């Protein structure tokens, strides 16, 4: 049974519904805390957030569910890494023009090159500044 955590995170007091209220962002990140911070941030910005904590479940989702408006992918993931997921996305017809932002560790600079070659639209080095990340996401889905 896939661990699928889907949350509507607009419950915080912030009531500034962003322009694309119904827009969904898919986050694949194995660290629960980072995942939560991202969810919190994006939820506050008015996005629907779907998270996965491993490559296997994320891969299944890519095959089964309709494409989101943006994907945030960590590179290092259990089972199937971010690069492989990215390649899967780019292969799938319905998903292949979804913007993808890679989250990469600063020490793995090689991953950035690999990710861009595999079709990533942008990348953010961890640790990221929340405001900067939101700005990049906004730019990609505008």
């Amino acid at each position, binding site marked *: 049974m896939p661990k699928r955590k889907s949350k509507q995170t607009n419950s915080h007091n912030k009531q500034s519904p962003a322009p694309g209220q119904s827009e969904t962002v898919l986050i694949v990140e194995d660290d629960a805390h*980072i995942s939560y*911070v991202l969810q919190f941030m994006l939820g506050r910005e008015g996005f629907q957030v779907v998270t996965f904590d491993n490559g296997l479940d994320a891969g299944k989702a890519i095959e089964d569910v309709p494409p989101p408006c943006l994907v945030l992918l960590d590179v290092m993931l259990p089972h199937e890494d971010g690069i492989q997921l990215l390649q899967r996305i780019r292969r799938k017809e319905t998903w292949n023009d979804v913007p993808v932002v890679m989250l990469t*560790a600063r*020490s793995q600079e*090689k991953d950035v090159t690999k990710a861009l070659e595999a079709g990533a639209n942008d990348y953010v080095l961890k640790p990221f*500044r*929340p405001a900067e990340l939101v700005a990049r996401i906004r730019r990609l889905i505008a």
Partner: protein
Amino acid sequence: MIYHYISIAYTVISLVLATTLVVRSKHGVLSRFYAFCVVMLALFGASVYVSVHPVEGIPHWLPERIAQFLYALLPFFFLHFMLIFLRKTILVRSTTSIIAIYTTGMASFVLVLLGLIPVPFEAGSSIRISGYIYYLVWMSIYFSIGMALSYAMVGNFGEKRSKPKRTFRFLLVLMLILPTPFTLSLFNAITPRGDGWYVVAALIALTGMVYLVFSHRVVMTTPYQAVRTAVALMNDFIIRTDSHFRIQSVEGAIGSLLGYSPAELQGRPLGDLIKKRDANGHYTAHPFSETMTDTSFDARLLASSGLSVPIVLSVTPFRVAEKIVGFIAVGRDGRDRERADTARFKQEKMFRSLFEENSTPMWLYDREAYAFLAVNRAALTLYGYSISEFLSMDVRDLLVRDGATTAEEPGKADDPGHFSETLEQKHRKRDGSVITISVTRRELEFGGHRTILEMVDDLTEQRRIERAWTDLVTANEFARSIINSSSDMIIAVDMQRRITEFNKAAQRTFGYTRDEVIGQQVDILYAEPERGRPVHESVIRDGQASIQVINRRKSGEVFPSILSASALHDTTGAMIGIMGTSQDISYRQELDRMKSEFISIVSHEIRTPLTSLLASLEILSEAPEDQIAPDLRPLLAIAAESSDVLMRLVNDILDMEKLETGKMVFRNETVHVGSMVKGSITTMQPLGRKHGVSLFLDDRTGDRAIEVDPDRIQQVLHNLLSNAIKFSPAGDCVTVRISDLSGSVRIEVTDHGPGIPEEFRPRVFEKFSQADGNTKKGGTGLGLQICKRIVERLNGSIGFESLPDERTTFFVELPERQDEYAEKKEQANEQPQ
């Protein structure tokens, strides 16, 4: 018709003569060829005869053609003789001669057929005088040379070549006008039917031939003549004496050997000729006795000049009816033999002195009896015996018979063939001391005996070096304990690269015990022995060496080590070996690897929680006023700043690690310095504002392009700028100046802070160095070290100038883009022309 028979007789005699020559000259090539020529000549004569006097049933053209052909071959014969003669002297190659001969022969035949060479005969008895003269010239040359050569061979069995006598040559010419068809024709032409003249000429020629045969002893008529001739042709002489050794007759080369004429010796006793025994007893006068039988001996005979000549004399009694009536003494020139003896004697003397004077002690002994036959001076010196003492012993007397050496009795090997072997023995000298020697022995045939030559190599010198080792290493237990207590491996080898010392640390590291390796080749310690050898060579050359090598433990496991080796000397300063200290650096390499891995894992593991921490704190600090109590805000700021410092520290450590291990990736691209610095300043403005410091840019280059990794240079600039800002007093300014140096761009960051204390200056670029000893400015202590390494990786330089309390300037100089620099240089080079 008589001349026809004489003509045939001439031919027959020619054939007999040729056959005799062939027999006498031992079937040499020359004589056989001569015979062949005579046969050809006879055939020629016959065919000419038939062509001049046609015979019923034979077509007249056939003998004519044969005669013409053989006539044409005359130059061929001549040439062949010439070439054979030349081959004897200047070695004309036979293929060359054959080609020349046949070419000439065929050319001659063609010329005859074309009528260009006159033919002396014509069918029907007529003759051309020009053709005859031509024939005569050829024949005389041909015969002269042929006979001369034959004579030279037959008349001399030695190597000397004598010329034919004048009379002999005259007879040869005479032979040419012997009865032949041509002489017949000639006589017919000048005297009508003058048979009488012809007979006279033929008789003269026959007389000449007989004289020729007998006067040159070519044909042997009696055995006595044969012996005489043989003796005459050799350098021997025969003396016939009566039964009282009184000389009766002398034959042979006595004149040339001793200078006597046979007549003057007649009647003298043979003994008078013999030189008597001289003072050294080398030559003996043979006591001729009337009862002696066949005897042969070397003697010196007195020559007429008074000198003596070595002669080998063989004396044989001459009996008639069992009674000795006289003696025949045959003397042979003994000078060659004497020369050979002298040469052999000299050679023997040379070998004897080679043996006698050789610095290697050696001796020769009888294989069966073990008795010494000869011993050289070096052996006498080594053992201290006199020659007579030595020769009175046998080889076994030298041996020290302890358990180890009794089994090595010399000559015990019973193989019938020659052998050669080397073994180590202990010998006792005259004074009783024992020496260790290495004996190389070899079997020799010497005067019919089976003997053994032994050459002795005194190992005492080698023992001395070994003892020096013992003195150096084992005798001094103090040194030994120092060596053993060393945590470094200490290994010493001698000049043959055999291990002589192997301390405890080495035993631990390699897993060998001391006894296992002492005396072994040091190669067993190397995984790649060929990389160990240069150590030895460079120590011999330079006195010391230091190298990283790969060693092999007893278990087979390999490990890297750093080896420092230096030469060992004895008290006289002579090199006796090499001492090496070595450290197993496998743990060090492993440690380095673990450190890198640890740093990378830890940093990564720290960063993951830091990521969420930083992001959460930032979100929190941006929370609306009413959601966080104002007195809690400073705590939030502290948390944010501390985690920021932590993050930078982790990043710096990672960067440092990457720079140190060379894993840092540089993505160089063309960067415009001005724009890049402007960007850096913009990024740093918030920090400046926070410290109340303003930033200024002074670009004097007009945005020059350089080839760098912009991210890395930004990192450097951020570091320098943040340092400058942090150390500037509030309200001050930091200036960034870009200036153009030849071939490089200089970026200066100047602040007016307290400056760098004098004592700290040398350590500014070191790791974790901070002048104030703490991190109150929020630095990690790695920043400048990282800057330095990055700039150096980009082939630039970094430095600073500091005037305390006035200003401090950090500068970075980066090379300009290569192509631009090269262009400029080219332009500079072109200008002077």
